[in-house]
């Protein structure tokens, strides 16, 4: 399932809770905004993971160059 699909599924689940009367309007609005924050966290976590892999690669290349 893609990130967009996840986002839509989670938003629909919140809408269902709101429609059922389990969430107030302000709670529903806040939780929808939190989905946006969650997306930003996932993007930043992905960036961090990419940089970490790249850093390991650079370390490997430096080790190879040092051995020559």
């Amino acid at each position, binding site marked *: 399932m893609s990130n967009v699909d996840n986002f839509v599924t989670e938003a629909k689940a919140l809408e269902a809770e709101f429609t059922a009367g389990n969430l107030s309007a302000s709670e529903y609005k*806040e939780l929808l905004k939190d989905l946006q924050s*969650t997306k*930003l966290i996932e993007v930043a976590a*992905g960036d*961090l*993971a990419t*940089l970490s892999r790249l850093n390991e690669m*650079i370390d490997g290349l430096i080790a190879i*160059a040092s051995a*020559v």
Partner: protein
Amino acid sequence: MKKLLLVALLASLNGCVLLDAYRMAHFDNNEYMLINGIRTQASVGVAKCGSFDVVGAVDSIYFSSLELKNYAASIPHNEATIKMTNELAVITKELSDKYYGTEEVGATYCKLKFNLIEKNAITMQTAIGSKPR
């Protein structure tokens, strides 16, 4: 030959990304410990939703989230972690504000909020844990 390979590989990468990766903040035990604490508090806190004890869990998770945000903010070349901790601090502040506001807080909201904090904390813990040693 190896040096040629090294130059070819480095030339194929964007210079800024390469520099960011080379200088990035390394794994920090305290950062990892703080995000692990938040994750654990969220998993414990969700069980307290609907009881009076939940206010203590809310206070605790908001404090820890702010603590992590402040700790990460002063570490050089730590931009991605700073972004994540800022967002998590907003989420936990909203939870705290709700409990200290005038509106009654529903148990469903409380559970969804703690579950969301735990989900984000797991994402962050995985990313922070993968930082280079």
